[in-house]
């Protein structure tokens, strides 16, 4: 088995020109981001556009979106294992790897947002002092770590079975798979609660926040999967059944339907009752006192989500590659705005003393965020590159052939 892993690791560094170009591109982005991050460490977070009024920004927005992406696995796991839907079962491994990547990127986005990153151990068990169960920050860290561990175990187990050419022993792994479902729900719920539990911020302090988180996560994660799976199919020998893609698209349609409904419920409550608590939503969608930088973005996102919902709802549309991809891209972009900047920034606008500070990330924040995305892409590419020859049985087949020749 180990020799199979060693052979797979050897292949990670081999590839065609496009592969090397992709790697160089990602490494360049990462290098640029590191130089910007070193500057941020040196000067402080003043290099960002965050200030006392809007004290969380682009980093935390990306973090929030990525917690949603980590759901990618779960919408594959449910049909694969609970409903025995074969075509998806075969690709669930890639969903789990996306989840692993997303959680690691979440940790990176938290790290770059900390004013004192070296002190992060203060929040660790044993070494530091965890404010548990009081702080939702600690709950979220634990939930994400647990989710990471579950997915790493599932991937390692699958790779081990594949490397030795044996079928999944479901009896062994099934409890973990079942556990991963409520766990995925919990990472979104807890991340939502992190914002939700603050009465100082009426925009977040709405009971609909956690359900909205879940609904949008079940859109963005799987939508990203649709794109990634097609890329894997295109660039490797892995076969991905169209039936799996169509099923994922169908599930996204339901999730997006719920997402749009919940958004509507929130809009109705705020704008019909018209209390002062609607100010952040007003800022986001219509502008407040002449200021509203996020308006074009949120309307674009809303339009994207609605169009994608219609595409994925109609079987004849979602089963055409062009529309399938269009829908997936629209959802990823739409939810990125809605569950990113559109969720974090209006929490702070107007601030608790009524001030409007229009936040827009600096170039430095943008580059550092791009670097973390590049790190995620690099990590995922390497994982896929390592996995594919094991997954397809290519390495085992070659060895068997060699043995046969001898």
């Amino acid at each position, binding site marked *: 088995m180990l020799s199979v892993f060693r052979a797979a690791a050897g292949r990670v560094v081999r590839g065609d020109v496009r592969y090397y170009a992709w790697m160089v591109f990602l490494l360049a982005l990462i290098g640029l981001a590191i130089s910007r991050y070193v500057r941020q460490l040196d000067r402080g977070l003043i290099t960002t556009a965050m200030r006392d009024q809007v004290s969380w920004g682009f980093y935390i927005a990306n973090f929030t979106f990525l917690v949603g992406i980590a759901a990618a696995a779960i919408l594959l796991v449910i049909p694969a294992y609970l409903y025995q839907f074969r075509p998806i079962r075969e690709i669930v491994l890639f969903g789990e790897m996306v989840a692993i990547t997303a959680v690691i990127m979440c940790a990176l986005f938290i790290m770059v947002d900390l004013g*004192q990153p070296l002190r992060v151990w203060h929040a660790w068990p044993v070494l530091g002092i965890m404010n548990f169960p009081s702080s939702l920050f600690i709950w979220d860290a634990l939930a994400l770590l647990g989710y990471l561990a579950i997915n790493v175990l599932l991937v390692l187990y699958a790779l081990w079975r594949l490397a030795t050419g044996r079928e999944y022993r479901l009896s062994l792994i099934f409890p973990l798979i079942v556990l991963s479902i409520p766990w995925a729900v919990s990472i979104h719920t807890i991340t939502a609660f992190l914002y939700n539990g603050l009465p100082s911020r009426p925009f977040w302090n709405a009971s609909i926040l956690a359900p909205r988180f879940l609904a949008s996560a079940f859109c963005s994660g799987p939508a990203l999967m649709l794109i990634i799976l097609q890329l894997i199919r295109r660039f490797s020998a892995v076969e991905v059944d169209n039936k799996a893609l169509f099923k994922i698209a169908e599930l996204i349609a339901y999730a997006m339907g719920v997402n749009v409904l919940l958004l509507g419920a929130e809009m109705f409550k705020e704008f019909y009752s018209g209390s002062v608590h609607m100010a952040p939503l007003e800022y986001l969608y219509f502008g407040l006192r002449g200021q509203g930088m996020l308006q074009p973005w949120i309307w674009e996102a809303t339009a994207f989500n609605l169009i994608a919902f219609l595409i994925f709802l109609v079987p004849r549309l979602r089963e055409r590659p062009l529309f399938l991809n269009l829908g997936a891209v629209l959802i990823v972009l739409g939810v990125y705005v809605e569950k990113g900047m559109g969720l974090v920034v209006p*929490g702070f606008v107007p601030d608790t003393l009524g001030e409007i500070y229009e936040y827009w990330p600096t170039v430095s924040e943008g580059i550092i965020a791009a670097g973390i995305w590049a790190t995620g892409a690099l990590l995922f590419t390497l994982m896929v590159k390592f996995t594919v020859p094991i997954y397809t049985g290519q390495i085992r087949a070659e060895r068997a052939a060699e043995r046969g020749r001898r």
Partner: protein
Amino acid sequence: MDDTPSESGRPATVSRRAFTKGLALGLGATALPTGPAAALDWTAFFQKHFREMSEEEIRRTVERLEREARHRWRKDIRISTTRAMPGVVFGAGVDLSRCIGCRRCVYACVEENNQSRNPQVHWITVLRFRKGEKWSDLANAEKYYEPGRVPEEGFFYLPVQCQLCDNSPCVRVCPTRATWKEPDGIVVVDYNWCIGCRYCMAACPFGARRFNWAEPTIPVDEVNPDTHYLGNRPRPKGVVEKCTLCIHRVRAGRYPACVEACPVGARKFGNLLDPGSEIRYLIEHKRVFRLKEDLNTEPKFYYFFSA
């Protein structure tokens, strides 16, 4: 004062050193405090939470911090660790009928508590409202008013700072317990334990918490050397700070700087447990209210009208 140590000591060398270090040792190393000796850095890195330290550890830590402060500010800075007095819970208040919006409290606080001059950090915010307009939801508050003279005709003022919540949202959310409520009711921050996540700033309903977005700068001759560990000792960048009701003064039996500086006597202060204190008299005899009482944070900061 035209020169501050952090500006004069700031040229390219620092960032270049930081950059090479980053390349050589990996990213983490760059955030290490660039103190006089490497050994010092590691002691700082492993420094424990204030409330977890023994008396002996506190003594040694204070010595080291004073040494670092002398190096950084070229001035002897005393860091006291005076504990809360038994039988004391502090409360404060502002008489809105008297406040003229002069902001002398704001600047007295800055000088007393070693707040950064650039970037500008203020622990007190004075809000201005137009008379006759709705104001208690703070939505129409004006923070950046710049009049030639105060008070201005047709306006009134509301100073806001830490509201000394008994049920503090900021304390509840802090992941590392770096901020807590002392027995005398003052909410403090351990600047050496805060990781700078700013969750407390999101949680505070009164905008009372400030983050050091850059290295604080204070002209050397303006640094107040009389400091407290949990209060006005100089802070590093990347941590949160806030009003501590001048913990170094009030625990020594003095008034907070803002109370002393107020030219019209609008600011009040006292021991809530002492039935004879001024603050108790006001609570019992005036119509008092607290900001955002619907949030149930139970502030110990009272607003009232004398007229």
